[in-house]
């Protein structure tokens, strides 16, 4: 404890534990704050409370058996994790999948991106004190997406819908009317959030110029996803390294100006609108064909190494798979976006107040399941 001695006033810094159980740490994250009154001098993050050693598990599971585990990585956007993993294995086996499966994957992934961004926006507003009202609106909208997924693959959170070489089921009848109705409904709701939150003075005062992440610092920390785009870097894997059918679809990438918490929120809000556009186009151009695939056969890829990254709602999720010819991967490394996004936090928070650390953490949209693997 350094005690700053000015004449007779002796102020002392005290250590506060924003411990694993705290209402706004988005999962089990423990922050050790060194406080001088309300001012944060230093913050160290302790992670690993949710470490289930997914990579060790992967070494005892066949390629198909590991798919349900990828749901539990980023449990809010499990369609995107499934897609990332399954595409990596397909690249390992250099397997071609049918066009319809590609379109279905894009629709599912983009719908899950909207659901994940809705949670990010809802919890961000909750952390800033707008007690539960925006959160319930976001969960009300997310519920409609969950119902669509429930009809498509039978589960509400851990979908386990994608298979190596395709998807488990074809889209049920009448699902595209339901999705179209949702898109129209969601567009009006996003404008509501603009009125309710985006230009609200208290919201602006609390999140503008807080947690400024300059462009080069973001790249240096290999931050990715909406946090990187909010700092002004126009980098989105769906545009720069297109996979599946993204190059056929027309959408644009929202980019923020000065990388503060408000910009990260605004980029996520805009991305919801872009994802709605993508889903609409993909639904229109859905080709015929059979996307389903059997899972009885055990895949035994030839010994090789591949690295493939996809654009997750939280950033770039990468899979580094090394196969040795047997049915089990020799080594499976998961590059999780929240891990690098969280590394920036201690740097952004110096000199700010407790209320700001909660705001920055909410705007970075960390997810502990993915950070700790």
């Amino acid at each position: 404890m350094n005690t700053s001695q000015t004449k007779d006033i002796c102020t002392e810094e005290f250590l506060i534990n924003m411990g694993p159980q705290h209402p706004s740490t988005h999962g089990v994250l423990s922050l050790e704050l060194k406080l001088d009154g309300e001012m944060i001098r230093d913050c160290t993050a302790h992670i690993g409370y949710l470490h289930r050693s997914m990579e060790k598990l992967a070494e005892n599971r066949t390629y198909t058996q590991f798919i349900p585990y990828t749901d539990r990585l980023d449990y809010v956007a499990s369609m995107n994790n499934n897609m990332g993993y399954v595409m990596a294995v397909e690249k390992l086996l250099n397997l071609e999948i049918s066009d319809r499966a590609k379109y279905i994957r894009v629709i599912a992934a983009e719908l899950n991106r909207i659901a994940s961004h809705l949670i990010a926006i809802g919890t961000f507003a909750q952390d800033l004190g707008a007690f539960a009202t925006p959160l319930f609106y976001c969960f009300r909208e997310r519920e409609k997406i969950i119902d669509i997924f429930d009809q498509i693959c039978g589960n509400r959170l851990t979908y386990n819908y994608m298979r190596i070489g395709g998807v488990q089921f074809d889209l049920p009848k009448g699902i595209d009317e339901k999705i179209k109705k949702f898109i129209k409904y969601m567009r009006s709701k996003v404008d509501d959030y603009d009125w309710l939150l985006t230009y609200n003075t208290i919201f602006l005062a609390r999140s503008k110029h807080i947690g400024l992440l300059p462009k080069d610092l973001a790249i240096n920390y290999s931050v990715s996803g909406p946090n990187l785009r909010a700092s002004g870097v126009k980098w989105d894997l769906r545009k720069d390294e297109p996979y599946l059918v993204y190059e056929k679809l027309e959408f644009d990438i929202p980019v923020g100006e000065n990388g503060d918490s408000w910009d990260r929120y605004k980029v996520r809000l805009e991305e919801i609108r872009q994802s709605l556009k993508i889903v609409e186009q993909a639904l229109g151009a859905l080709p015929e064909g059979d996307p389903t695939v059997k899972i009885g056969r055990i895949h035994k890829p030839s010994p090789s190494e591949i690295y493939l990254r996809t654009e997750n709602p939280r950033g770039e999720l990468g899979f580094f798979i090394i196969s040795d010819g047997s049915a089990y991967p020799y080594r499976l490394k998961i590059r999780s976006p929240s891990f690098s996004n969280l590394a920036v936090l201690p740097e952004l928070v110096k000199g700010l107040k407790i209320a700001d650390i909660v705001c920055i953490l909410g705007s970075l949209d960390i997810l502990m399941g993915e950070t700790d693997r």
Partner: protein
Amino acid sequence: MVIIKIIKLSKDLVIGAWSLIKGLVITLKNCFIPAITLQYPAQKQPMTDRFRGLVDLHPEKCIICYQCVKICPVACLAIAHKQENNKKVISEFKYNMELCCFCGMCQQVCPTSAIYMNKIYEISVYDRDKTHINLLNPGKYIEWLNTSIK
């Protein structure tokens, strides 16, 4: 100079107040939209036809091919069979509900769709032994049956 500052400040105040009022309009608008939450024990959400509840079995359809046991990522299924006048018969089919991650792979891989996932989702138990379910006895899910399927 001071006057410019005052004008700017009052302009910010007016814009700020207007943005706050816009927020209030939204909440009032939502005040009159009917509530959508379900009163849980009374109203229950019907499960979709692809919903993955508890694992269930048609014993007569099973051809004892062990595909489901092989594919299960958490090894929660176990079969034992015996030879009876040149025909294989299941003697034991155990399902460990506690480990099951409800991924639906056994249902997809079963050639004769003997094993399937039913619509029961209210599966809390008081002691651990009740999580080891013997899929062969027909009365296994009776007490949960009437709760979930309302």
